[in-house]
């Protein structure tokens, strides 16, 4: 019974993405299978080099890069959104799988959840 948490909001402008990560890490902490899917501007969470000190926020880049250590099974990103926002092998954080057909991916999970 695998849960897919979907993030479609860009980082830092709202707390929705952070609260999505909290959901994913909580499921993982209880040994429940969970993956994260980034679509639309949500893929910007996965870009290297985030420096949010100037807006008094903490970077989540390191948390995401360590997601597999926390027990999150996969970091999935919509390939078209990556292309749209200029995300390539050179600037994506490690461990991201780009997927071509998001609709098909969505079909594979019993639970598909947005945090808000």
């Amino acid at each position, binding site marked *: *019974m695998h*849960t897919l948490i979907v993030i479609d909001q860009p980082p830092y402008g709202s*707390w*929705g993405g952070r*609260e999505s990560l*909290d*959901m994913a890490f*909580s*499921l993982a902490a*209880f040994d*429940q299978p969970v993956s994260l899917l980034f679509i639309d501007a949500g893929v910007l969470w996965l870009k290297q080099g985030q420096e949010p000190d100037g807006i008094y926020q903490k970077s989540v880049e390191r948390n995401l890069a360590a997601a597999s250590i926390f027990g999150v099974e996969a970091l999935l990103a919509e390939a078209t959104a990556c292309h749209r926002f200029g995300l390539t092998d050179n600037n994506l954080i490690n461990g991201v799988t780009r997927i071509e057909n998001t609709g098909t991916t969505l079909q594979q999970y*019993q*639970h598909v*959840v*947005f*945090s*808000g």
Partner: protein
Amino acid sequence: MPADIHTFTLVITGAPYSSQAPETALGFARAVLRAGHTIDRVFLYGEGVHLASSLASPPSDETNWTRAWGDFLQEHSVPAVACIASALRRGLVNESEQKRYQLPASNLAAPFEIAGLGEWVESTIKSSVQSSRVIYFHGGA
């Protein structure tokens, strides 16, 4: 009572007065019980925690969603939990959190309680059986 009784967990992520999420969820919750099903828990997450604020004071000719939900929960003995991380960030605290963080007031309306995401995880695990459902009510902006 239907032969196949289902158990629902309702997750509300939209705040009252900035979204319809609490009212859609309440209409749904009433219909769940009318059909003879059960609600094991209502979970408030993100902006949804504002529903549990005892300080909301809308004009008297508008629905007070905190009170409407509180009445429903008490009448049907349905537990409702606000996520502690979402709640503390947004200034929603019970007496024990007020003491812990030495805050000037507490504002958690009865019968809402504050607890961790573990409660939501438990509902999610339970919903792997066919007779159990977790339904999310998001904001509409």
